[in-house]
C-alpha cells in the first residue's frame, strides 16, 4: 500500500538531483579538463604509434633501397626465389598449427576436468603451467629436448620431424595459453553446465565438445592467437635444435644479405599480423556469444 504522488506533464519533479538541475557554474573548468584529457590521449597515441610504426617504416625504407638512390622491390622478389625461406615458412606454419592443436588437446580437457572434478588441483595445474616462464630456453633444450627429439623421430613418419619442436613449443606456450583458457573457464559456471549436460544424457566427450568448448570459445581463441604469435616469433630453441624455421632462416639470411633479411622480417611481421587478424576474425564468436557480453535481462 504505497502512495506515489503524480507529477504534472512537463513539470520537473521536486526531487530532481541537484547535479541535473544545475546550469552554468563549473562548466568552464570541466570543459578545460576535458580538452586537456583529449590532448593527452592524442599525444600518448602519437607516441605509441610512432614507437611502433617508425621502426617498421625504417625497415620498409631500408629494404626498398635500390642502386643510386632509387627504390626497388628486388629484396622482396628474392624472398620468393629462396627455397630455404619457403621451407622455413612452411615449417613455422606446420609447427604453429601442431602446437595450437597439441596445446588445446592437452589444456582444455585437463583444465575442464580440474575445475569440475578436482578443484583443489587447480593451483597445482596452474603452477605446472606457469613453470616454463622460469625455465631458460637452454635448460629446456638440454634437459627436455633429447627426449622429445627421440619421440619426434619415432612418432613422426620422417626422421627430422618438427614434432620435436612442437613438443617443446607446447611447453613454451603453456603459461600464456593457461591464463587465456582459465579466464574463459571462469567466465561461465562450467561445473553446473557440465552437470546439466550429463543429466540430459551427454557423456564426457560430448559435454566438453558440445557444451564447454562453445562457451569458452573466447578463451580458446585467445590461447590459440598467443600460441601462434609465440611460435612464429620463437628463435632460440629452433636454432639450438637446428630447425630451419622462419626466424632461423631470417637470421641466416641477414648474415648474407641485409636487405633481403630486413625485407623478410617486415614481410614476416605483416604475415603474422594478418594471420592473427584472420584467426581472431574467424573465431570472433557467434551472435549469442557477442551479445552475451551485453547486460543480461533481469
Amino acid at each position, binding site marked *: 500500500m504505497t502512495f506515489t504522488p503524480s507529477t504534472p506533464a512537463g513539470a520537473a519533479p521536486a526531487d530532481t538531483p541537484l547535479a541535473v538541475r544545475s546550469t552554468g557554474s563549473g562548466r568552464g573548468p570541466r570543459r578545460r579538463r576535458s580538452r586537456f584529457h583529449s590532448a593527452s590521449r592524442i599525444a600518448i597515441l602519437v607516441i605509441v604509434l610512432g614507437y611502433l610504426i617508425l621502426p617498421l617504416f625504417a625497415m620498409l625504407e631500408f629494404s626498398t633501397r635500390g642502386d643510386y638512390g632509387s627504390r626497388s622491390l628486388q629484396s622482396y622478389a628474392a624472398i620468393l626465389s629462396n627455397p630455404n625461406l619457403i621451407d622455413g615458412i612452411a615449417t613455422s606454419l606446420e609447427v604453429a598449427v601442431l602446437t595450437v592443436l597439441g596445446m588445446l588437446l592437452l589444456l582444455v580437457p585437463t583444465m575442464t576436468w580440474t575445475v569440475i572434478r578436482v578443484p583443489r588441483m587447480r593451483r597445482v595445474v596452474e603452477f605446472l603451467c606457469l613453470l616454463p616462464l622460469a625455465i631458460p630456453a637452454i635448460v629446456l633444450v638440454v634437459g627436455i629436448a633429447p627426449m622429445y627429439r627421440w619421440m619426434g623421430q619415432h612418432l613422426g613418419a620422417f626422421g627430422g620431424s618438427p614434432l620435436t619442436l612442437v613438443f617443446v613449443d607446447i611447453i613454451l606456450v603453456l603459461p600464456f595459453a593457461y591464463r587465456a583458457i582459465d579466464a574463459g573457464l571462469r567466465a561461465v559456471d562450467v561445473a553446473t553446465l557440465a552437470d546439466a549436460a550429463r543429466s*540430459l544424457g551427454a557423456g564426457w566427450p560430448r559435454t566438453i565438445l558440445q557444451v564447454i568448448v562453445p*562457451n569458452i570459445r573466447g578463451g580458446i581463441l585467445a590461447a590459440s592467437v598467443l600460441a601462434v604469435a609465440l611460435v612464429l616469433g620463437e628463435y632460440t630453441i629452433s636454432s639450438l635444435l637446428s630447425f630451419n624455421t622462419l626466424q632461423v632462416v631470417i637470421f641466416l639470411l641477414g648474415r648474407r644479405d641485409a636487405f633481403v633479411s630486413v625485407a623478410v622480417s617486415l614481410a614476416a611481421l605483416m604475415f603474422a599480423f594478418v594471420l592473427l587478424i584472420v584467426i581472431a576474425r574467424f573465431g570472433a564468436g557467434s551472435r*549469442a556469444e557477442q551479445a552475451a557480453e551485453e547486460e543480461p535481462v*533481469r
Partner: protein
Amino acid sequence: MTATTAGTATAERAGVAVQFQDLHRWYGKVHALDGLTIDIAPGELVALLGPSGCGKTTALRALGGLDEVDAGRILVDGRDMTHVPANKRGMGIVFQAYSLFPNMTTIDNVGYGLRLRGVGAVDRRKRATEMLELVGLAKQADRYPYQMSGGQQQRVALARALAIEPKVLLLDEPLSALDAKVRRQLREEIRRIQIAVGTTTLFVTHDQEEALALGDRVGVMSAGRLEQIASPTELYDRPRTAFVAEFVGLTNRLRGVADAGAVQILGTRVPLLEGSAGTGPVTALVRPESVKLTPEDGANAHVLAVSFLGSLCRTQVALPDGDLVVAQMAAAEMAGLAPGVAVRVTVAPSPVFAVTG
C-alpha cells in the same frame, strides 16, 4: 528412520518409486549423509528441507548420479542405480544456478536431451515446443538465455528437464535465486506441472514455506540425518524432534514442569508430543498461534510491539519474569493490542514438544 510411502493423494499418479537405503557419504571428516533412508512413492513430490550443509543437496546429487555415495543403495523403480553414471540415469535436474547452455537458443536447450537420444529434428522441435507451452514460454523459443529473466530461465530449465520424460525430476533449490514474487508464482507453476505430468519429484530447499507448500511430504534433515519425514501438516503440528519443532515454523521457548505426559505452561496444562522430555522442568516449544492474548487491566504481561503482516498480526509480549513471547493471530483479532497494553497470556491446549531444561 524409514519413512512410509505417501497416501492416497499420490497413489494414482504415474512415475517410479525411489528408495534411499542407508546412504553414507563422507567429505573428509564431514559425514554429509549419515544413514539416510527414504522411500518415495511413484508420482510423489518429496521436499527435503534443512539448513545449509545438512546433506540435502548431497542426497539429490547422489540420486542424480552427480556424486558418489560411500555406502548404501539407491533404487529407482526397483533397479539398483547406485553406480550408474549420471548420463545413463534418465533423471531431469533443475539446478539452483542458471544452467541453460548460453550458446543455444531456448528451443535448442529444451531439445538437447532429445538430440542426445537421437530424436529427429522435426519431432524434437515439436516436443520442445510442447514443453515450452507447458511452462508458458513458447513465444521465447528462439531467444538466447541472456535475453531472458531469471524466472524465465528456470522455467526453460524445467521444460528441458521434463522434455526427456525423466524417471525422476530433481529440483535443487531452483527458486532461491529469484525474487519473492517470481518465486511464489514459479512455485505454484512447478506444483501444477508436477501434478499434470505425474513424475516422481525430489525438491531440495532451505525455505520451509516452499517445502511446506510444495511437498506431498517434507523430510527435515540435520547433519546428514533425516530427522522426520511427514506430511506438511503433521510435520508442523506433531514434530518428533526438538530440531524439527524449532526449524519448521516459529516457536516460543516457554518454561514449565512436565509430568504424566503433560506440561503446565502459563496456567494451562498442555499435552506433550511423543518423544518429548516427560518429567521435571522442561522448555516447551509453543507455536505463536497457540498463544492467546486478552487485554486486561492489571494483568502483569504487557505488549512490546505489534507487527501487521496483512491477514495476520504478530505481537511481542514481555512476561512478568522477563521472558518474551510471540503471539500470532488473525488481523481482525488485534483490536485493543498496542505497545504498552497490559494483557493476560494463555496457551491453547494443543500438544507441544518439550526438551529438558
